[in-house]
């Protein structure tokens, strides 16, 4: 292959991490520009790769020119090309957004913070691009280790939350590694393409079954799928603003990607849905995940915490969609990876802006917030509308495909769970609007004139602008749904079903 874009996209942030450490030691203020530049390079490379995939089909890249089964292979097909663009672009925007917020929250640790920041992005991009099962484990742990540190930066309550996250994250990764070991025993290879070719003849093997189960379980722990979702909420809530904005949209979504990759590329839908046929149990679990996530979100008094439980519910969307066992569901799940990454990013960025101004996000601070921070709330409203699933935001379209998939598969409970979650999101949204309009929930006689003359106190432009870009993207993704589906997801679906 002539172009080096696939490796450039990984190398740029990796090398930047070294430079940030070196230069940032003496000149901390340089660390932010270096991070942004490296992520920009990464974004441009990923867009270039995306265009190549669109015009020429799936691409392969052999690291160090070692051929496939021996060396590590990068495979970029339709499934991950768009994910790579999403990761790099969201990361770039969050990096821009992070500047003021990190300066405020962690003024004396700029260099350390941005080093870890770009390393995390390296890990996430690597997970998505690699075609090697063991390489994936290593990158998974790189991403995990950096995210532990990024969360623990906040001190205080985040430490204990991170410790739990470390325990659960390690268990997840170990399960994955163990599962890969089982597959390795049976096949003698770690290359995913190679694995899938050999596994075709091994469908009856118990060891392969155990390997599959372990890998999927590991990923479920990593993505905080019900019932192993407990670690997520606290870890994300108490993390520094910028860390949540980066980790919440991308980390769990990448785990979902790995699950779908294993289900469709390493194994086959034939194996997962026809041979095993316990996918309906998983869909039921997904329904419960959505219900539990929504209920927990509803009962929170703190906006950020409430959002973290919405993430748990959204994971249920994607796992359920992927396991419905029909093209519509898989389409919905894949599309929702992109849509949800943008949605979560938008919401957490808006929440971050509020934290920047108020220091916390208990629901009572939302009083008069629309007048105080109109731009922030504009982004929040768009994000929330997408969560509810109001057209033309992208959240509507993923819900559309997931519900069609549920109907096609006859999984009515999944459909009801999706609708329930939409309604709960609507309630959460309007509760905040209500507080914005009427003041705190408890007060019996809200006074409309009380907050008429509140001056506009918006978060800095460097935070608001990236958020608004993401909010615009929510509508943009929604409008271009049919293109995304037909160009990117359809080839994948037709190859797997």
């Amino acid at each position, binding site marked *: 292959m002539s172009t080096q874009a696939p490796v450039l996209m990984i190398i740029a942030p990796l090398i930047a991490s070294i430079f940030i450490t070196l230069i940032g030691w003496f000149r901390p203020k340089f660390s932010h520009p270096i991070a942004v530049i490296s992520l920009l390079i990464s974004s441009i490379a990923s867009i270039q790769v995306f265009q190549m995939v669109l015009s020429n089909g799936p691409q392969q890249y052999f690291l160090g020119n070692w051929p496939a089964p021996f060396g590590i292979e990068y495979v970029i097909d339709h499934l991950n090309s768009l994910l790579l663009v999403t990761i790099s672009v969201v990361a770039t925007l969050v990096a821009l957004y992070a500047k003021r917020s990190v300066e405020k929250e962690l003024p004396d640790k700029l260099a350390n913070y941005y080093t870890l920041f770009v390393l995390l992005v390296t890990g996430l991009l690597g997970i998505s691009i690699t075609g090697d099962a063991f390489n994936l484990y290593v990158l998974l742990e790189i991403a995990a280790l950096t995210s532990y540190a990024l969360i623990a930066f906040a001190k205080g309550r985040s430490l204990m939350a991170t410790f739990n996250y470390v325990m659960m994250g390690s268990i997840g990764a170990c399960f994955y590694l163990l599962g890969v070991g089982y597959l390795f025993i049976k096949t003698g290879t770690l290359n995913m393409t190679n694995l899938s070719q050999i596994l075709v003849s091994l469908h009856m093997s118990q060891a392969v079954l155990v390997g599959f189960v372990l890998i999927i379980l590991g990923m479920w722990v990593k993505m905080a799928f019900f019932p192993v979702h407990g670690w997520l909420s606290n870890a994300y809530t108490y993390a520094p603003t910028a860390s949540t904005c980066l980790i919440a949209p991308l980390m769990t979504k990448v785990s979902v990607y790995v699950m779908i990759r294993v289900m469709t590329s390493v194994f086959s839908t034939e194996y997962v849905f026809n041979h095993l046929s316990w996918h309906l149990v998983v869909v039921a679990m997904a329904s419960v995940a959505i219900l539990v996530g929504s209920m927990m979100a509803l009962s929170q008094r703190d906006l950020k915490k409430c959002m973290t439980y919405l993430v748990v519910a959204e994971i249920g969307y994607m796992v359920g969609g992927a396991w419905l066992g029909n093209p519509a569901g898989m389409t919905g799940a894949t599309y929702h990876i992109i849509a949800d990454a943008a949605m979560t990013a938008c919401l957490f960025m808006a929440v971050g802006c509020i934290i920047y101004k108020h220091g916390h996000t208990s629901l009572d601070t939302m009083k008069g917030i629309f007048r105080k921070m109109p731009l922030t709330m504009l982004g929040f409203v768009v994000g929330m*509308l997408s969560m*509810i*699933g*109001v*057209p*033309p935001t992208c959240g509507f*379209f993923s819900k*559309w495909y997931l*519900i*069609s998939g549920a*109907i*096609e598969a006859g999984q009515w409970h999944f*459909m009801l769970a999706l*609708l329930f979650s*939409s*309604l709960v999101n*609507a*309630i959460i949204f*309007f509760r905040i*609007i*209500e507080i914005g*309009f*009427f003041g705190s929930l408890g007060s*019996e*006689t*809200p*006074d*409309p*004139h009380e907050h*008429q003359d509140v001056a506009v106190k918006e978060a800095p432009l460097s935070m608001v602008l990236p958020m608004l870009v993401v909010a615009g993207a929510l509508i943009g993704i929604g*409008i271009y*749904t*049919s293109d995304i*589906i037909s160009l990117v997801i359809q080839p994948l679906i037709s190859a797997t079903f």
Partner: protein
Amino acid sequence: MWHPVLILSIALAAAFLILLTGERRENLRESWTFIAGGIMLYGLFQLLPGVLNGQILRHSVLNVFPNVDIAFWVDPFGLLFAFIAVGLWIPTSLYSIGYMRPLKEHAQTRYFACFAIAISATVGVAFSANLFTLYLFYELLSLSTYPLVAHHQDAQAREGSRKYLTYLLGTSIGLALPAMILVYGLTGTLTFSEMGVFGGGISAGLQVSLLLLFLFGFAKSGLMPFHSWLPGAMVAPTPVSALLHAVAVVKVGVFSVLRVLTGIFGIDLLAGSHLSTIACIIASITLITASLIALTQDSLKRRLAFSTVGQLAYIILGCSVASIVGVQASMLHIAMHAFGKITLFFCAGAIFVATGKKYISQMVGLGKQMPWTMLAFFIGSLSVIGLPPTGGFISKWYLIMGALDADKVWVVVVYLVSSILNAAYFLPIVYRAFFCSDEDSQYKDEVKEAPLPALIPPLLTASGCLLLFYYHDTLFKLAQLAVGG
């Protein structure tokens, strides 16, 4: 070249300009509304000849799913509805000025901007060529009217607006959306067509469930038991109640139901199965119950609200009998009821501005102090009851003809009973306002008519009610073109 997208974006542009102009230059701010309304009305008139010649303008903006676009068309029914919405927006804006300024309401910029967005959404619903586009604008309308309902920002407004959104969003997401996805899954299309989209192969049980999902899913149409958002939303300022809850929002509800019944199910399917009867029964129950409840209300606006619930059921009932004349009549009734009900709301608001009174029991003898207002009120009530010489008579006449055409005599009985109830809850108000001895009158000489901007609009729409009795040819032509040709 006039175009549905252009027309609805004029209102959006107006909203934007209103926000830009802001609170300080209020005359300039309000003039945007009138300019936009004028241009839109002109545009609609430009579209009229083509539609009357039987052309249907179609325009697809964007493809979203296979076979589903964000698409618009200008069909007779949609045009008729757009005429009503835009046409009544202009007097309502005038009225808003007369209502909001004397009462020194806060946040008027937000108010007028949301109003413009709501009109834009209404026009969008009117011109939607498929269910998906309709749903999109339907949701936009729910969201953009929320700040209007919550306008006062006090405890009562909180209750009302909470109910408003719970009912509207809850039903549209919980019922209408799955129904829409089901239809798409079964047929692969959502485009309205006179023959319906189902063809043959849908089981009766599925048809009935879809019918129920759609009827209750579009809760803006106020069918019981999903009606109680409407009286709740009466906490809004009166101009809002007038336009949105007598014209735009509720009519969008029935418009959507009519579109689904005629364009998704198709009249033939309705007439040829039990679906028609089921829909008729649901509508009839709402019709009678709402009229009975209206009798018991003392707050004038609440009485009007329950009257609206009943009249909306008329429209759905007219369509549900599934005869050509019935459907035409229900389309006509959308227009007639709009003029009548908006007049009544205008009068209620004018009374409130002039006297500060909200309750019917406080209005004895008011006719002598506010003769013009009460005259308009009288004409409006006649139209809603369906007595000549008002437009309401025409549409009710055809409604009954439609029911007879479909051999549903019991529906005729329902119509008549309800009309008597309508008379029973409206006429006493007028009677006691005009004919009472001076001792009984609660008003001595101190009360005057409301200021002119609040007085002219009800007189305008009241004369509209009268004129429609004589000049309803174009409207009827549109309704005829819309069904059966």
